[in-house]
């Protein structure tokens, strides 16, 4: 029997070109770990495309931006970049020729990453198999296609400079801060944008909407944030995509599968400590709607008929499979986008080594009308101790049109 000696073979394959320099091995492995923490693969891989070869269309309010090929292909990738070129792109948002990158590439976060970490990521990327994949990098309409305009944007919204640890905080907190504020670029999704597409630093990590998904408040806020989560809950969530409160879906599913489930437990704990200790912020908690409210009564009827078999009448769900809705922060965000979207279009949870079953929520948009969805979302947001603003049929209608592409 010809056994595959995987443990021996795989690292050799992974090293590829840089294997010629054995001294580089540690740096490359560190770079791979860092690239995983940064989840580079998520944006730099097209659906069905080669890893890191780019070509994914990032939808921004200004138009679609195609992500570049970051494999070391000389013509279409970054094969000719030096490590200084790479560091400049990450720290300053500039290409080797000096032209400007768009901040859809979150260099305002990567600016905080240390130069030695960037060099390690560079070393790792240079070991990838080069893939020839030419990407049209200029799809934005006028005037956004003028990259020089980013010079002005940088002047307004970009603060260069590497991460500075806070000496008054623990090493663990500072490690978490370095990961969240830097490579992890959590704020790129979880912090609201201003109208120029820049993160509003005054509302850091207080929640945002991305592609009709709610990126929840991940401050320590009791109402909508991680206030009820322990450090262990956050670690478990990042490791497995699920906790007793929640089951990740949408873009966070990809973050967990590609990135956080593969990170070291110590780094996950550092992230959790940082998120728990850095403070709470969010709108004040509203009072729940009365159960006698007509919207609640209609919502309850829909819930009992359509939702309760899995999520249970008590809103407790089933561990590992059907998220608990009571106390679920997705339900209590001010923005109801995720709840509406999941009901209309369905969703799927993350699959990880420890939790391989990736259960799905079926799409129910075909059989529930806007008013029914508005009612059931309102009911879920205001039952079992949850409290959040009611949702109108108009809101559902508008989101349905965005999610399904259905016109009026």
């Amino acid at each position, binding site marked *: *029997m*010809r*056994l*595959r*000696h*995987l443990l021996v073979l795989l690292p050799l394959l992974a090293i590829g070109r840089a294997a010629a320099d054995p001294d580089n091995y540690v740096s490359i492995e560190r770079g791979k770990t860092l690239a995983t923490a940064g989840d580079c693969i998520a944006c730099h891989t097209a659906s069905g495309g080669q890893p890191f070869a780019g070509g994914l269309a990032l939808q921004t309010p200004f138009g679609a931006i195609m992500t570049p090929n970051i494999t070391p292909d000389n013509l279409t990738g970054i094969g000719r970049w030096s490590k200084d070129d790479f560091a400049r792109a990450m720290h300053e948002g500039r290409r080797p020729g000096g032209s400007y990158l768009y901040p859809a590439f979150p260099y305002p976060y990567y600016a905080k990453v240390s130069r030695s970490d960037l060099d390690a990521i560079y070393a790792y990327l240079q070991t990838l198999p080069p893939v020839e994949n030419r990407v049209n990098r200029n799809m934005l309409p006028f005037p956004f296609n003028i990259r020089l305009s980013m010079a002005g944007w940088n002047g307004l919204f970009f603060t260069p400079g590497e991460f500075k640890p806070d000496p008054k905080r623990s090493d663990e907190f500072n490690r978490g801060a370095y990961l969240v504020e830097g490579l992890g670029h959590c704020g790129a999704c979880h912090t609201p944008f201003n109208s120029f597409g820049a993160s509003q630093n005054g509302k850091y990590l207080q929640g945002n909407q991305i592609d009709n998904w709610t990126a929840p408040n991940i401050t320590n806020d009791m109402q909508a944030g991680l206030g009820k989560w322990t450090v262990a809950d956050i670690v478990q969530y990042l490791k497995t995509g699920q906790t007793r409160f929640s089951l990740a879906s949408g873009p966070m599913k990809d973050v967990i599968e590609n990135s956080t489930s593969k990170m070291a437990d110590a780094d996950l704990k550092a992230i959790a400590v940082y998120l728990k200790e850095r403070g709470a912020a969010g709108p004040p908690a509203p009072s729940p709607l009365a159960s006698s409210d007509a919207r609640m009564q209609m919502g309850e009827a829909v819930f009992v008929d359509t939702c309760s*078999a*899995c999520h249970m009448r008590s809103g407790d769900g*089933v*561990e*590992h*499979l*059907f998220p608990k809705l009571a106390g679920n922060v997705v339900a209590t965000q001010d923005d109801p986008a995720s709840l509406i979207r999941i009901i209309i279009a*369905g969703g*799927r949870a993350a*699959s990880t*080594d*420890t*939790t*391989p*079953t*990736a*259960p*799905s929520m*079926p*799409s*129910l948009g*075909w*059989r529930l009308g806007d008013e029914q969805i508005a009612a059931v979302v309102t009911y879920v947001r205001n039952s079992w101790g949850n409290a959040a603003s009611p949702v109108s049929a108009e809101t559902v209608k508008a989101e349905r049109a965005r999610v399904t592409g259905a016109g009026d």
Partner: protein
Amino acid sequence: MVRRLPRKDVVIVGLGWTGSILAYELSHTGLDVVAIERGPWRDTATDFNIGTAADELRYAVRQDIFLRPKQETLTMRNNPSQTALPIRKWGSFLPGNGVGGAGVHWNGQTWRFLPDDFRIRSHYTERYGEAFLPEGNHIQDWPVSFEELEPYYDKFERVAGISGKAGNIKGQIQSGGNPFEGARERDYPTPPMKQGYQQELFTQAATKMGLHPFPRPSANLSAAYTNPYGCSMAPCTFCGFCEWFGCANYSKSSPQTCVLPALIREPTFEARTECEVTKVNLTVDGKMATGVTYVDANGEEWEQPADLVLVCAYALFNVRLLLLSGIGKPYDPVKDEGVVGRNYAYQTGSGSQAFFENVQFNPFAAAGSTGAALDDYNSDNFDHGPHGFVGGASITCAHTNGRPILFHPTPAGTPAWGSAWKKAVHDNYQRVANIGAQGSVMSYRNNYLDLDPTYKDALGRPLMRMTFDYQPNEQKMANWMAARCDEIAKAMGAKTTQVNPLRVPWNVVPYQSTHNTGGAVMGSDPKTSVLNRYLQSWDVPNVFVMGASAFPQNAGYNPTGTVGALTYLGLDGIFNYLKSSGPLVQP
């Protein structure tokens, strides 16, 4: 032209229960494993949406997820004097199609066979004398005992999360369980399913009669469960869409819920769906397999070399693949020689339908494996001396569904349509209980499988021919069981009952059971078996054959629990084979 692919460590034919378990266990050790599956990929999230899965017309009537006769069919006859004709619409049994196999659409009744079942010939001979055995029988002992299989039963029950109540833990009889079962090391992983009102009546009546009813073991789970592979399941909602359906609720144990989520994460595993294996290839001397040949969805032919070939298709199709590949000597009933195709068996179905007054059974609130059962008349749990037959049946009071198109029981004499029929459906929908006996079928010289001399499939290969009928022993047994069912039905307080005797001769039209067994049986003697006790081919030691094709004769139970146990036994054999190639048992 056949193109040769790069070699793999293991090729698996068919990705159902047995194939997926072996694929996971072997790829998990780092072996390169490819599974080749004739049907499509199927997954709970994408194929069994809770909003559309409960479609009786699509799945139960139009049989959406079953094998189509144009993919493969059989010819059938009742005895060797007849000319067999092709089955043009599957009826008596419904083989699955696609990833998960019949494990997708089963009801989920997950039994262990009884200790006596495994040494049936020795046992009957010792107790009643050899002359008691029926004429023309091929009844033979299994090459393993219940005690040897117990840890493997346990493994499968843990993976599937089975809900049940133990009747015998380490020799201690447990009240509420099946007192006849073989001693188990520990209880089921999840508690028994909740039962309905008719099960309550059955339990009370049977107990009063001195019988021993218990909730039957179920792969529709009573509680949330995470199995040793990390796969999670949810409690059953009693929606009543189990048999013929994929479960949308992650509640029915299947390869989809219990194995595939872990399997597809294995980096050395690959599945090729909509690819049909046409042959296991052998070395020139026929002593070793070199891999398989298969045809993909575009009709292209490929050779997949592999060191180990695991035949994991449905029982009947395992036998055909062995016959087409020339592995093992084909069975010849005239000379009573050869082994492949020998000892094909099936099951009997008989019972009593009971019509009640002033009850409300709510048959729509059901699951495929809810039900109360008793084993007082199974195997040799009762004295067969006065009855003159061999074998027995599990007797069950169950309703698996109350679905609107196909569930409308009416008393005999009701017109088949019109207002009288409607009134009878209205009056009886809530008031019918079925007491059924699922009986064993022994193996006989003239019940067997071989290649049809006339009919061929689309690829020009001969179809397999099934020669089968219920023998006098089975008729006597099943009809005696129907009378026992009727006694219980009457004791439950039924106003009227209708005895359902065994229908003879066997025919392929009405659905009866997909518990086809034998044809590639395991045994201790290569003259009367295809496989040794590890399900390894006696003739080609790098071929293992899983599934109910290995049963030497059939028992009075659903087969899947035993198929699962044999898979884990076979896995141990495969691990031993990997350490020291060659036959694991010397003939």
